[in-house]
């Protein structure tokens, strides 16, 4: 009876410590600074540049390392992460991340009258684009 009680206590300790470790991994409590805790989408795209024009690789969610440090952030919200010694840019919606600071609130204001007037001009698009076929 006494041995049985010890076995239950040990088992409970093991289970609880496992849960605690898992929770710690999820929240990356031990990591400091900005951190990408884990993947959020089934696949995570990693880019070589902040603009997202050069895709380096696509990782399955399970293969994205947890508690990856965030080393930078671009104005378009892309996050720079350091993985296996290399730096990549990742779209923030693809990972669960934690910022040490606070994100600014997103607000929108409609000036009255903007719904009564429209631009009498056409937006110039793609001025900087190279012409098709030109090298």
């Amino acid at each position, binding site marked *: 009876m006494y041995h049985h009680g010890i076995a239950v206590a040990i088992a409970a300790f093991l289970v609880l410590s496992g849960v605690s470790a898992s929770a710690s991994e999820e929240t990356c409590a031990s990591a400091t600074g900005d951190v990408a805790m884990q993947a*959020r*989408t089934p*696949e995570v*795209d990693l880019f070589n540049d902040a*603009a*997202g*024009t*050069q*895709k380096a690789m*696509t990782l399955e969610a399970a293969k994205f390392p947890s508690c990856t440090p965030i080393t930078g952030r671009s*104005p*378009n*919200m892309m996050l720079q992460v350091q993985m296996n010694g290399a730096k990549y840019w990742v*779209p*923030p*919606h*693809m*990972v*669960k*991340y934690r910022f040490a600071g606070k*994100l600014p609130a*997103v*607000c*929108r*204001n*409609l*000036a*009255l*009258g*903007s*719904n*009564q*007037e*429209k*631009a009498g*001009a*056409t*937006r110039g*698009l*793609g001025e900087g*684009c*190279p012409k*098709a076929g030109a090298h």
Partner: protein
Amino acid sequence: MTTAAETGIRRRDHLLRIIQRVRRPDRAQMEALSQRVPYWFVCVTLFAFAAIQIMLNPFGFSDLTQRYAQDISNLLVTGPYLYGDAGQKAVSAAVIDEEALQTLQMPWPWSYGAHARVLDALLEYHPKAVVVDFLFVDTRPDPTLPQLVDEIARYKKAGVPLYFEGGTHLPYGEYPLRPELAATGARILDPTIPVYDGIARQYNVNGKCFDTRGVAKGACYSLALEVFQDTYPQYKLEPLNGMMELVWGTRTDPHNAKWISVTNEDGTKRSCNSDIGPLRRFYLAFFDPSAVQNPCPYNAQVPVVSLMEGSDDKDIPDLIKNRVVFYGGSLEGAQDKTYTPVNGLLPSVYVHAMALDNLITFRGKPEQNVITAFGHTIPSNPAQMMAIIPVILILALIHMRRMRRKRARSGIQEHGVTFEYVLDKTIETVWHYFAFALALGIGLLLALAVGLSTANWVEVVFVSVELAAMLLVGVPDSLWGYLHHVAGGVADDPA
């Protein structure tokens, strides 16, 4: 025996008398004859007047009446009080606007990769379907194009329908959608929006069909109807003809009020929630309609910046999960804005959203400009003519009875002059209201029974009141008296 010469002389005399009566009619004879106007003549006269008004659209009066009434109805009655919110809870729009471009420091045009990023962020929240309201027509060189192709594959894998739009007014040989994107098998829809006097009040039922190589033959539904048919199979889409008449909701989605505000002309800010009481709304709708318009859209707007930064805002899943999300733009100078009756100028993506909203709210039986009954489709004008027939028959019948009573009363001075005057004025007023109520009842019956929109029966009400006024002043009676007199009719007992 009369000779041919005598017959000729008699005919000439007869004709001369007719001409004389046309030029100098006998007033007493005419008035006496007008008292004997037959029921059929009253009906024919009223019907002819109604036909001119409704079918011939003199000075555009018919159209103007219809559209003005539709706008007022949207602002006053259907929008704020009658229109349900089933569609509002099922449709939202992710709109890239100037503020998003500035915040993200991503100048326009965006790369295909950037669009793929937004689409991927939407997919994360499990939408019911996503409609891309950007035309990807130009074959501009962009190394990120494969990212968008990959994203389409992700949508397929997740089982979420993704729709693109095809260009409709392009030079011959131009692809409606970039061949690389069309080759993925993504559905391509016709984004055409009909505008009436520059305002989006109707929506096409049918549109062009597209295949991977361009415009295909055959008939397809328009954008909102195609999406509705695919995403709401539980509601059987009625066989539709003519056009949809859009009902514009006025109560902005509660989510919009949380993050969108309005700046008044004096610089003060106010909420998107429009707190205008019924009486004030009624007054403003007639005298200052722009004051009742709410610049905030009816359907929820997903904040694209929050979406792209992977925000934990708990409203974002609410705005996307199990909803049909329209992904479009509101960009200065991109010319993709449309004037609406209740919001003023809005990004055109909201017109598609509102059309789908109508289909969901009315469960596949939207308001229309035609009647379809027993397998036959009747256009708006003939439908209105049919609707006004019972009004004419009833008004004419009551008019005849009134005439008969008046004839019986004539010569008998039962009451004082004041009493007669008050009685006549009371009858006049009641008469107009009766005609108004009668036509309104028939209009509402048409709306409820066969889904004819307000715009397409409201003229019946206006014309009915006009007909009542015509009967009050005795137009058919006078016309009958004159014509009968000219034709040689003689009153039994001229007054």
